[in-house]
């Protein structure tokens, strides 16, 4: 593939611009990372830029020290994997029929789904329904009240529509059933979109904390985000800044900023790892031919 001069210049420009922007996106993260490994004094004096000053792992030690961390971490992992699986499955099951013109009432259903994106009952009425359906203080309070996202149904429906109809028709000729076509033809062809909504759901499950506040009081079910928020809050409170104490000043004065930074890193890195695994679905086009073949 030969490129013209102009194209080569444009390509170089493109590479450079993207590189610069990536650095701009990376810098704050590196800054937070550096803070998480720096001492209280260094951070409060504004000395920490992109490199740790007075290196310490005290903040991470504080986060990982307790057994509660492990418990919270596993709650988060479980909720993210089960929740995302349920989300993606239900989303596909709903979105696929809605992408077919021969399904009666699809417009009405789509409208009703879009409607829920703008109108909602609010915190208390939703809480009451969650209570009535018996989910309070159970793990399922994390999964079921958010089982389907309207936004993602709309997105999936749109992607399903772009799957060429001939493929399905020819599969039908071969005697494929409707569901067979969905799972053997349509789903593999829609992997980029499925990877996208998987990522969206996984991230929102991982970051969720407010449903815990509303629906769960059993501390064994608290996820990582709640654990970390409590940790920060505890170290932040004036009461505690004066109450928690130790002979070694530097360790009690473990910088709140550094703890916050470490908490952010500890809570973000696990979910960041998901992306590279899904990435293969984005980088190169799906070979329609190979499926057809």
């Amino acid at each position, binding site marked *: 593939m030969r490129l013209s001069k102009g194209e080569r210049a444009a390509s170089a420009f*493109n590479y450079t611009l993207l590189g610069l922007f990536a650095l701009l996106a990376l810098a704050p993260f590196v800054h937070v990372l550096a803070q998480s490994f720096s001492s209280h004094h260094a951070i409060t004096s504004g000395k920490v830029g992109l490199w740790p000053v007075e290196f310490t792992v005290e903040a991470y030690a504080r986060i990982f020290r307790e057994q509660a961390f492990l418990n919270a971490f596993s709650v988060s992992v479980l909720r993210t994997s089960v929740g995302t699986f349920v989300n993606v499955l239900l989303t596909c099951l*709903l979105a696929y029929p809605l992408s077919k013109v021969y399904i009666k009432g699809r417009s009405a259903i789509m409208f009703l789904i*879009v409607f829920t994106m703008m109108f909602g009952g609010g915190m208390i009425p939703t809480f009451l329904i969650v209570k009535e359906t018996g989910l309070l203080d159970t793990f399922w309070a994390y999964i079921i009240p958010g089982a389907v996202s*309207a936004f993602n149904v709309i997105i999936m429906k749109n992607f399903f529509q772009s799957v060429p109809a001939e493929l399905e028709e020819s599969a039908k000729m071969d005697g494929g059933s409707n569901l067979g076509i969905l799972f053997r033809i349509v789903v593999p062809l829609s992997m980029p979109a499925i990877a996208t909504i998987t990522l969206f759901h996984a991230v929102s499950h991982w970051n969720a904390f407010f449903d815990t506040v509303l629906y769960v009081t059993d501390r064994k079910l608290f996820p990582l985000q709640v654990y970390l928020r409590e940790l920060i809050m505890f170290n932040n409170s004036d009461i505690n800044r004066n109450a928690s104490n130790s002979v070694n000043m530097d360790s009690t004065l473990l910088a709140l900023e550094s703890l916050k930074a470490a908490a952010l890193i500890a809570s973000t890195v696990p979910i960041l790892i998901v992306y590279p695994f899904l990435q293969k679905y*984005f980088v190169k086009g799906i070979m329609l031919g190979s499926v057809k073949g």
Partner: protein
Amino acid sequence: MATVDAAELQREAGLIAKPKARRFRTIRSYWDLYLIMLPGILFFAVYKYLPMWGVVIAFQDFSVFAGIRGSEWVGLAHFKEMFTDDDFYNIFLNTLLISIYKLVWGFPGPIILAIMLNEVRHMMYKRSIQTLVYLPHFLSWIIIGGILINVLSPSSGIVNAILTSLGFEPIFFLASPEWFRTVIVASDIWKEVGWGAIIYLAAIAGIDPQIYEAAIVDGANKWKQILHITLPSMMGVIVILLLLRLGHVLDVGFEQIFVLYNPLVYDVADVIETYVYRVGIQQAQFSFTTAVGLFKAVIGLMLVTLANHGAKKLGQEGIW
């Protein structure tokens, strides 16, 4: 306009003319597709529509303890409170302006980024860039706010250091009503553009590479490929996202404004969400908050419905 209406009529007519038995047959032959929709539909019915009677608290002085049945009805009092507030006009205008700026400047961002990424042939480079640009999405506005205050500081910030070295006067960006909205829009783009690009990358990934190959054979250069293959293939997603965005035109992102604004820029920075926060902070004013939410939703729904209609007339799929 007339033609579309005519087409619609024809379709309707065809439907009505269709014998009942045949309609039943389509339902019967696709019964499994109807069945698999059930869990999703049930979900929306139970967890979205059942609580929806909650919007009536916009017309009540809702008390949590008394519940909806026990709370006092006040009619449109909360709406009156909102619309008669001296500041409301200004707040509404600010909200609309910031939202439109974000839409005009921010909406194309992820599309452009996705196309730029698609043009990168070097796989490692592409993957790394992709992973890096979506990092800011995971930082909270509180953290970004702290960084922005430092970076934009007139005395010690790097941006002003660059400005002064180029011979400009330092600018107090966050305290200046002329600059505040620019900072809001630019930082929002920076934070979300990488994340927003993912969905477009998925759309691009769905394009059959054979189409590009054919275009190259026909002698189309890069620019033409983008214009005639990549962009049109993304159009469906672009339209859908634009429509959905219109539904939230009055949501500008509370956390960002709240972290960055200050009394010197209240005139240009106070938006509906900060207003609701202020009114609600005294007490969980569920009724007032719901009333404002209802107002925003009605405007959003009207815009989406109009735009959806328009999109269909332009030959796009639309949402419903």
